[in-house]
């Protein structure tokens, strides 16, 4: 019973297909059903009614071309006016497709779209187009399967990239906050040192300095303390380095395990792998004690802390009585007295009554205070520019979810003719002579461009469904990386490269061309542009 109804269904389908005018797709079938009056209304100009016998009579009656879906008669119209998609090729055994009307009965077997050869039914000029759908369909399915396999691998590789990108982002964010904390610490320190300097300068003006006697107790004590502190600091620094290295190794190992987890073949029953993966999952599930950034900063601050000025500590001071006296005055009076004292002192010096203070022979304490301050200040500006750099890096537009970030600095190269072409992602491209090794810069990375070619072309009436006769290559994704300001050409522009990206599991340089002078085009494969498998599947179908 079921079989019978299926058969019936099939027959009715066959019947309705057979009665459709040539070139009409099943989905448009209802537009071409004959009415009682045996007339046809132009699809987008329904006011125009013609006898149904004039459908496909090789004369274009409808201004939208809808009366001639099966001939080239309406190829006289311009794109924007044609309302039908073209001549529908059933392509039994392969994928159905529309052929532009101007390619019907032109003496060419347009197998790329019409593998069944149905487009040349009048045999114009003696042309014969037997169907090739069986072989082409099989070949296309094979290619599609290969492509899909390739893309799904590519897509997995992309996931890894995305994971790495996430980690990198986190790291960068951490670095930024570390840097910010550091800047705060340095700022504090600068303020402190400024105060110290001021104080030192004041003291300097009014003290008599006596160097410690060599071998005095004070001097020995200072020296011992100094050595001890230095030793502790060195130990601490070493420990810190060891810790960082260990953490890096751990990250790498985790990354390897992540790849293993996504790429391993579950159908391959390897107990060892499975055990390892289970353990990995558990490990991942454990709460990770995130590194306490504050502690780390403290540690760093301890290491970086300015030394105590041990020499200064060893000096004995005898402060002039005047200054001791002024300390008991209110602040305003202190300043006034000090100023007056200075004036008097200058007067005495100028008149040769008092010796000039030794020039260029600052006391070590003052020099040290100044040095410490300027060192701290330069630390501050260094750290600030470091922070700027980090922030700039973080804000770079590196694709959706920063997918390109992990590729930065990855270099690939390939030989073409007399040159090796080298490309470092998001960085530089070079042409290297294979004769003399000379390197010519083809440009530095500028920005990422994403172009939706399909939409753009469709909007301007361009055929998007052309299947390349040869090339089973992965098509370009529409994402490209622009590089400019390479070495200037003789009497020409600066060299530049547009790197067109296609999906590939492993980064590769497929082709290089210089289609106009000093303007290069690279085709580069990367997982970064591999869509997720579901979308990729859809795309494959469309192209067939």
């Amino acid at each position, binding site marked *: 019973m079921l079989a019978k109804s299926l058969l019936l269904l099939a027959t009715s389908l066959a019947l309705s297909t057979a009665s459709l005018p040539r070139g009409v797709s099943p989905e448009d079938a209802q537009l071409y059903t004959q009415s009682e009056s045996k007339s046809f209304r132009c699809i987008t100009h329904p006011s125009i009614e013609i006898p149904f016998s004039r459908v496909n009579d090789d004369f274009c009656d409808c201004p939208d071309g809808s009366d001639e879906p099966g001939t*080239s008669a309406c190829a006289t119209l311009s794109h924007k006016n044609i309302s039908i998609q073209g001549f529908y090729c059933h392509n039994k055994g392969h994928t159905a497709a529309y052929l532009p009307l101007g390619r019907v009965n032109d003496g060419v077997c347009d197998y790329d779209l019409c593998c069944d050869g149905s487009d040349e039914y009048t045999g114009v000029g003696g042309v014969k187009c037997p169907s090739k759908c069986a072989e082409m369909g099989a070949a296309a399915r094979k290619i599609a399967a290969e492509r899909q396999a390739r893309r799904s691998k590519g897509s997995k590789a992309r996931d890894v990239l995305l994971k790495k990108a996430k980690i990198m982002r986190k790291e960068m964010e951490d670095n930024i906050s570390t840097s910010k904390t550091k800047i705060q610490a340095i700022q504090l320190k600068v303020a402190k040192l400024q105060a110290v300097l001021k104080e030192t300068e004041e003291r300097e003006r009014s003290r008599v300095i006596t160097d410690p006697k060599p071998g005095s107790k004070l001097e020995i004590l200072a020296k011992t303390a100094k050595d001890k502190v230095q030793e502790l600091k060195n130990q601490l620094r070493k420990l810190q380095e060891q810790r960082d290295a260990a953490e890096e190794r751990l990250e790498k190992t985790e990354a390897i395990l992540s790849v293993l987890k996504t790429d391993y073949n579950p159908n391959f029953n390897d107990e060892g792998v499975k055990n390892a993966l289970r353990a990995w999952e558990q490990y991942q599930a454990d709460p990770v004690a995130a590194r306490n950034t504050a502690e780390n900063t403290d540690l760093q601050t301890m290491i970086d802390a300015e030394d105590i000025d041990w020499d200064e500590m060893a000096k004995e001071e005898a402060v002039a009585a005047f200054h001791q006296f002024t300390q008991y005055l209110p602040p305003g009076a202190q300043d006034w007295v000090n100023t007056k004292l200075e004036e008097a002192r200058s007067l005495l010096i100028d008149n040769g009554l008092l010796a000039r203070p030794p020039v260029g022979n600052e006391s070590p304490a003052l020099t040290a205070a100044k040095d410490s301050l300027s060192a701290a200040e330069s630390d501050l500006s260094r750290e600030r520019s470091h922070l700027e750099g980090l922030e700039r890096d973080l804000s770079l537009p590196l694709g959706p979810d920063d997918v390109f970030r992990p590729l930065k600095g990855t270099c690939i190269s390939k030989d073409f003719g007399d040159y090796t072409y080298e490309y470092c992602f998001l960085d530089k491209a070079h042409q290297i002579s294979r004769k003399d090794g000379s390197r010519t810069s083809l440009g530095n990375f500028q920005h990422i461009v994403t172009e939706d070619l399909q939409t753009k072309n469709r909007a301007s009436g361009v055929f998007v469904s052309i299947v390349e006769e040869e090339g089973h290559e992965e098509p370009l994704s529409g994402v490209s990386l622009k590089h400019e300001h390479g070495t200037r050409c003789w009497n020409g522009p600066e060299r530049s490269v547009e790197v067109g990206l296609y999906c590939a599991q492993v980064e590769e340089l497929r082709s290089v061309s210089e289609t106009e002078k000093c303007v290069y085009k690279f085709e580069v494969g990367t997982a970064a542009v591999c869509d997720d498998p579901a979308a990729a599947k859809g795309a494959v179908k469309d192209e067939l």
Partner: protein
Amino acid sequence: MQLLTAKLACLVALVAQLDLTNAVKHADFKTCSQSGFCKRGREFADRVAAAGPAWTPEYELAKDTISLNDGVLTATVFKTVDEKDGGKVELPLKMSFLVNSVARVQLDEAKRQKGEIELRHDSKARKERYNEAEKFALVGGTNYDVHANILNSDEDSTKIRYGWDGQQVVIDYKPFKISFIRDGEVQAVFNQRNFLTMEHWRPKRELKEGEEATVDESTWWDESFGGNTDSKPRGPESIGLDITFPGYEHVYGIPEHASGLSLKETRGGEGNYEEPYRLYNADVFEYITDSPMTLYGSIPFMQAAKNGSTVGVFWLNSAETWVDVTKSKKNPASLSNEKQSTHTHWMSETGILDVFFLPGPNAGYVYEQYSDLTGTTTLPPQFSLGYHQCRWNYVSQDDIKDVDRNFDKFDMPYDVIWLDIEYTEDKKYFTWDPSNFNDPLSMQKQLDMRDRKLVVIIDPHIKNDPNYSINKEMNSAGYAVKDKHGEKSFEGWCWPGSSNWVDGLNPNAVTWWKSLFDLKRFPSCSKNVHIWNDMNEPSVFNGPEITMPKDNLHYGNWEHRDVHNLAGMAFHNATYGGMIERDGPGNERRPFVLTRSFFAGSQRTAAMWTGDNQASWEHLAQAFPMILSQGIAGMPFAGADVGGFFGNPVPELFTRWYQSGAFYPFFRGHAHIDAKRREPYLVDEPYRSIVRDALRLRYQLLPVWYTAFQRASKDGMPVIRPHFVMFPNDPEGFGIDDQFFVGDSGLLVKPVVKEGQTETEVYLPDDEPYYDYQDYKVYKGKGWHKVHAPLEKIPLLVRGSHMVPRKDRHRRSAGLMKFDPYTLVFAINNEGKSGGLLYHDDGETFSYSTGSYIRKSYSFDGRNIISRDFDVPDERIDPAFVDSMKNVRVEKIILVGVPDDWKDKKTVTVTDKEGEWKVDLEFKKGEKGYANVATVRDPKAKVAGDWIVEL
């Protein structure tokens, strides 16, 4: 993949010697005063003119030497010279009266003719004046009119009558002068102003001590220019002649110049040139517009037009030539009917004086007379009238395939893609660059799938490399042009670096050159490959004026100076010959050959383009006058690089250029290697769609173009025709060169060549209705009319009286339109009539010569449309083509400008030998200012058949 950079290295090194930063380098090319004989010629003319009636004429015909036999008059002209030079120089005169009413005047120098002279520097050069230009330029038309007879002869003159229209010639003896009379009026006079010059041979005399030079001999014996010295072994030998056209206000022709169609005056004054028009084929870098400067090719043929009459002059000389043009002013006070006249002064460096007078009486006759002599344009293969896509350079076979696919993807038709020099291995012609073109056949095969073609460049400079077999063969057989000593091949620089040049004047070299194109010999070359001959002026980068030294020796020991202007033609003729023979006897196909250099006769084998123009509005505007000039000088297959060779056109310029290009007989986009990519699909919307429309218009009108070319190949009528040709009785149109007619189709087009224009003025030469091609708006009344011309619109009208045949179905190439049906558009005139011709053949073979073609006349007399054969043989030797067309029909007939009372017509009757049937007629009333249009729906009439549609 070896890239351009490396391959350009040698070019770069070479070009670095040239200064590329400036536009045309005037210093590279001579002015008249830097060219010895031109300087002497002008000074002589000035002396004669200044002396006025006091001038003692130097040339006198000896009356008793005249004899006229079987259409040929011979006589001796004597030139009076210094006693120390013998007092008199004998100049044999031969005047031929030809059956087509053309008269030919040849003047030689007896002493040189007989070899009674001595050459300096032990030169091996020939002693005669060069007299073989006719071997290359002429193909016929030289049958003598044996009925030419002397009407009367007296002490002062002899009058001869000849030709089919009672043409007369009056020869005055002293001063020697020849007047050409037609319809009782003098049409042209040779030597009216006594500028006749034939610099006789004389030995070089060293001045004795203390002797003062009596004449300035500084340009007689050696001439230096730009560091090159010309040894001039024959001394001064120039010729000159003034030709006056009484009552003629306009003269045209003598291409190639980037100048207007109607020639300007050249002796200064407001709006005039200071320099003569120069003809000396040269590779002029970044040439400028509106200049009489020489360019790549030369055709020494001039026409003069006045109300109701056209005559022509053909100056058969292949040496460097300069032409001064002046016009006498009308005297406003004069009461007489005196008209403005045009005076020309022709000066050539060497050769015999050999001039043809073509009596007209109208342009059509002049072209027929000129075609009888030099031949007509070859009937081009159909594909070559489609669109050509070129660039210096498509970098690889993959690049070519990619561009090819993109044209289809963007749905733009094209027929031919081109390869410039970089496809070769180190600029060695007949080789392919092994890294970028390692499988040229795959590329040719892909093109062939859509019936498309590939054109590759082959230049005359052959890389001087002992490992290059073609160079070895050429030099060992002595087929190259020799240096001035005549022993060794001349060596100079061009694209490949050190090179030698094949000598197209050597018949053995030509045979050898032809053999190189044999499909079995030319590596990886299939039948859809055609040829571009460039740099054949010849361009020699390190030569004087970027060409060959004049004292180089060609085959037969003729000096290069004698043959310079025809050397490029000799070369492309050889290429054409090789292309015809390449697939063996019986497999001849029409070749397509493009040349940059040309001479009178080049039309028989090649198309030309206007060389290296620039992406500027000035150059866009300059192109049509240049192409029109080519057409009226017998070489209609002409075009300019669409988009402009140098530079990058902005989208508006680019778009307007395609609209112009769609009306170039040769329609090719081309770009310099430094230019941005500009395949027409690369431009953004809306430009892309407008460019596509221009391409589609070209293809839609291919039947018009092909029919026009067929006529040109028959009788020399230009393919695009200026007003003075179409309306000889309307002098108001004689100066117009930015609008023109296409063939006999009645299409009048004025493409926009100015920036930002949205409206233009079109001149209508008569009172017939002119219909807008797209929307049938009617323009009527002689004079100027405003025509709307926004970016997307080409001002294009159809003149009432004409039928425009079209193929409306949009295909990918011309070849794929072969079996498409036709649409006939009848533009109805004031009398209610219209008609026209359609020519069609297989588009690729020579079988049309055995009758394998369709030529129909379709006419509408107000009641019926009648289709009948027009000028076809009764018996076709080869009916194959006509048979193949038996199913091709006329799918639509559009009648534009029908009367209102047609509104009730619903059906019409079609009758042919098979029977009669009724078809629908649709009438559409025109809005105010627009024409009524009636459309016959699918008359199912065979394009090749005889039939009647009764309306």
